[in-house]
C-alpha cells in the first residue's frame, strides 16, 4: 500500500531525513517512535506532501510521487488525496461546527451532494462517539472530542492511508483513551495507518510493526514485542529506558 524509497528531506543545511525506506502492507498499522527532533513529524508530513521531500519516491496505492523532479500543483493535490493527516493540535476549522468540519472535504473537494455529505458526516461522527456534539463549534468541545472530530474529518475523504502525528500528546491524560479507542477500531477495520506516538500500550496492542527513528534514520524495526521487550540497538534501549522512566514518575 505504501512504498517509500530513499526519502530525503533537508531544511536548508539541516538534513532531517537521511534516506528512509519503508513498505507498509494494506491494512497494517505502523507505529513510529523516537526522540524529539529525530524527524518523525517531518517524515509523516512528507507522506502527505505538507513538506516537499528533497529526494526519493513515495508510492501510495499505485500513485507514485518522485521527488527528484518538481511536481505540479495538480499532481500534489492528487497525491494528497491518497492519505489524510490527523494533527497533534487537531487544527479543526474554528468557524465551522463539528458536522461542517467533517462535511467540508466531501462537499468542497469531492463535490458530493450536500445531503449525502451530511448523512455521511453524521455517520462518521456517530462512529467516533460524537452523536451529541455534531452542531457544536470546536471551542465548545474538549480536546479529546476535537481530536475525534479531526479523525472523522480525515476519514470523510476515504483516504487509503491515515497518518497520525502524536494525536494524543496534547490531551489531558483522562482524554487519551477515547481517542486511542477510535484509532484502535480503525486499525481493526483494516485501515492502513502510520502513527507517531509514544503510547506504548497502543503500540503493543495495535501495531503490526514498530519503527524506531533517530537523527533522520530508521535505526530499528520489528514487531512491538521485538522492539519493546528485546531491542537490539543501544540507542533504542536508551530511548525506551527514558520513556519508561518518564511513565513511572
Amino acid at each position, binding site marked *: 500500500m505504501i512504498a517509500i524509497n530513499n526519502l530525503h528531506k533537508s531544511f536548508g543545511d539541516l538534513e532531517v531525513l537521511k534516506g528512509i525506506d519503508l513498505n507498509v502492507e494494506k491494512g497494517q498499522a505502523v507505529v513510529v517512535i523516537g526522540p524529539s527532533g529525530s524527524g518523525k513529524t517531518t517524515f509523516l508530513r512528507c507522506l*502527505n506532501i*505538507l513538506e516537499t521531500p528533497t529526494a526519493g519516491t513515495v508510492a501510495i496505492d499505485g500513485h507514485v510521487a518522485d521527488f527528484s523532479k518538481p511536481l505540479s*500543483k495538480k499532481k500534489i*493535490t492528487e497525491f*494528497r*488525496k491518497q492519505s*489524510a*493527516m490527523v*494533527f497533534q*493540535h487537531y*487544527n*479543526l*476549522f*474554528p*468557524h*465551522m461546527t463539528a458536522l461542517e468540519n467533517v462535511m*467540508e*472535504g466531501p462537499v*468542497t*473537494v*469531492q463535490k458530493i451532494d450536500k445531503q449525502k455529505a451530511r448523512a455521511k458526516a453524521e455517520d462518521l461522527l456517530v462512529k467516533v462517539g460524537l452523536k451529541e456534539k455534531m452542531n457544536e*463549534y*470546536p*471551542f465548545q468541545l474538549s480536546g479529546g472530542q476535537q481530536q475525534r472530530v479531526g479523525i472523522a*474529518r*480525515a476519514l*470523510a*475523504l476515504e483516504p487509503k492511508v491515515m497518518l497520525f502525528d502524536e494525536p494524543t500528546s496534547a490531551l489531558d491524560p483522562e482524554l487519551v483513551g477515547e481517542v486511542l479507542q477510535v484509532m484502535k477500531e480503525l486499525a481493526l477495520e483494516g485501515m492502513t495507518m502510520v502513527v507517531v506516538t509514544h503510547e506504548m500500550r497502543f503500540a503493543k496492542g495495535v501495531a503490526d510493526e514498530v519503527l524506531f527513528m533517530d537523527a533522520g534514520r530508521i535505526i530499528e524495526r520489528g514487531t512491538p514485542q521485538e522492539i519493546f521487550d528485546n531491542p537490539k540497538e543501544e540507542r533504542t534501549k536508551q530511548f525506551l529506558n527514558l520513556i519508561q522512566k518518564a511513565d513511572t514518575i
Partner: protein
Amino acid sequence: MYLNSIFTNPERLERLLDIAQSSFLPLLEGAIQYTIPLTLISFTIGLVLATLTALARISTIKILQIVARIYVSIIRGTPLLVQLSILFYGLPTVGITLEPFTAAILGFSLNVGAYASEVIRAAILSIPKGQWEAANTIGMTYSQSLKRIILPQASRVSIPPLSNTFISLVKDTSLASFILVTEMFRRAQEIAAFNYEFLLLYAQAGLLYWIICFLLSLVQGRLENRFDRYVAKT
C-alpha cells in the same frame, strides 16, 4: 458674542432657527445623494481591490508583489486631496476627463484598496499555518483553502480595523467637495456662502456626519457579535 447676541436678540434666534430648518433638507439630500453612495460604492470596490492586493503581496510571484507594494506605497504616501486633484483636474490635460462623481469614486476606491489591503494582509497572516495544512490535507487547492477556510476567519479579525477604514471614508468623502461633487459638506459651503452663517451650517454638517458614523458603529458591533459566535467567550 454669538451666544450673547442670540439671547439678547430674539429676531436673530428666529433667523438662525429658520436657516437651520431650511438647510436641513438640502444637507440630508447631499448625504443621501452623494455622501452615502460615495462611501458604499467606494468601500465595496475598495475591498475587492484590497483583497486582490493583499493576495498579490502574499503570493510567491515576485512581479505581483512588487506591483502591489508600489501601489500601496504611492497611495499611502500622497495626500488624498492631491490624488483627487490629479484625477479630476490633472487627467484632462492628457485627454482623460472624468465626471466629478466618477473621479471621486475612483479616488476613494484606490485609497480604501491600499489601506485595507494592509489590514487584510495582516489578518490573513494571523491565521495559524495549521489551518492551511488542515485544508491541504483534505485535498483543497489554494483557492479553495482561501475561500472556505482562510478568508472567513480573516474577515472576523479584520472587522474592527476595517470599520475604522469605513468610518474614515465617510468623513473623507467631504474632500469630494473640492472636486465639485455636491455632497453634504459642499451643500453646507454653498448655503453658508449665501447667508454667511458659517458656524451654524458647518456645525449642522458635522452633526450629520457624526450621526452617520454613530449608526455605523452600531452596525459594527452587531457584525462583531455575529462573527464571534464561534469564539470562546472570555
